[in-house]
C-alpha cells in the first residue's frame, strides 16, 4: 500500500502537512488547515486509513501537530478519529497523540477543543506538550 506525503502550504491555501506511512503505521497531520474545500482534501486521507485498517491491520500511531484548523477541518478530524476508534473497537492497536505548544496564546481554547474531540468520539487522545 502506498504512502501519502503532502507538503503543507502556508500560502494562498493553508494546507496541512500529511505524512501517512503504511510501513511504520505512523500518520502525521501538521501545520494549519483551512481550505476552500475540506471534503476534497480529506477524503483521500479517510480512504487511506480505511484501506490500512482493512488490509495492513498493523498498529497505528496518529500524531496531530496542528497549530490552527477551522471548524470545517475540525469535522474532518472527528471523521478521522471515528475511523481510528472503530479500528480500536475491532481489536486494532491505536495510539493518538496531540502535540501542542504550551506557550501558545490561546492554548486553553485548543485544549478544550481536544477534550471535545474525546467526548465526541470516545477515543483517548494523549496530550503531549512540545
Amino acid at each position: 500500500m502506498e504512502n501519502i506525503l503532502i507538503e503543507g502550504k502556508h500560502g494562498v491555501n493553508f494546507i496541512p502537512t500529511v505524512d501517512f506511512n503504511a510501513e511504520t503505521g505512523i500518520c502525521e497531520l501538521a501545520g494549519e488547515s483551512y481550505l476552500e474545500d475540506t471534503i476534497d482534501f480529506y477524503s483521500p486521507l479517510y480512504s487511506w486509513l480505511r484501506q490500512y485498517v482493512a488490509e495492513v491491520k498493523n498498529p497505528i500511531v496518529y500524531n496531530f501537530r496542528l497549530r490552527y484548523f477551522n471548524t470545517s477541518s475540525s469535522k474532518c478530524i472527528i471523521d478521522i478519529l471515528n475511523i481510528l476508534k472503530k479500528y480500536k473497537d475491532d481489536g486494532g492497536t491505536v495510539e493518538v497523540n496531540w502535540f501542542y505548544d504550551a506557550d501558545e496564546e490561546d492554548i486553553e481554547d485548543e485544549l478544550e477543543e481536544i477534550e471535545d474531540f474525546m467526548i465526541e468520539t470516545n477515543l483517548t487522545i494523549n496530550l503531549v506538550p512540545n
Partner: protein
Amino acid sequence: MHYRRDVDILDFHKSLDKNTPLSYKGPIDDRILQAIGFYIEGLLKATPKAGRKVFKIFIELAQNISYYSAETSILSDNKEIGTGMVLINESNDYYTFMTGNLVKNDDIVSIIEKSEIINSLDHDELRQYKREQRKLPPGRKGGAHIGLIQVALTSANPLDIEVNPIDDEHSFFSIAVKIDK
C-alpha cells in the same frame, strides 16, 4: 474637474475613523483570506491573545461570506465568490470585529434563530451545542454548521446580529463580535 460620484469617498473615510485598522469590501476568496489573515496578526500584535482570537473569528465569518453571501462576483477564473464586508474596530479595552453581507430573506429566520440559541447558552452549553451540531451531515464544501458557535466560544461574548431589509428578496445581515484585549 469632477466626475459624478455616487459615493462620497470623504464620508466613507470619515466613517472609518482612525480606530479602524482594517476594512474591506469585495469578493472573499482564499487569496483575500490569506492576505487579511496575515495582516490581522501583524496589526494586532500588541495584543497577541486578542489578535489570535480576531484571526480565528475572521476566518470563520469570512468563509461564511465566501460560501453563503447572496451577493457574488465572478472572478477571472470564472469562479463565483461570495462578496461582503469585513471590518475591525479598536477601542481601549476591546476589538469589535464586524462582517456584513447580503442574505436571501428565506435564510434569515434560521440564522437569527441560531444566533438566539447561541446567545442564550453559557460556555459549557455552547460546547455541547457545538458537539451536537458537528454530528450533522456536512454542508456545502464540508461546512460543519458550527462557525457561529465557534465565534461565540472564541470571543467569549454574545453575538450582536442585525438584519436590515434591502428588497423583496434580500436583507443586509451584519454581525459584530467583541473581543476583549
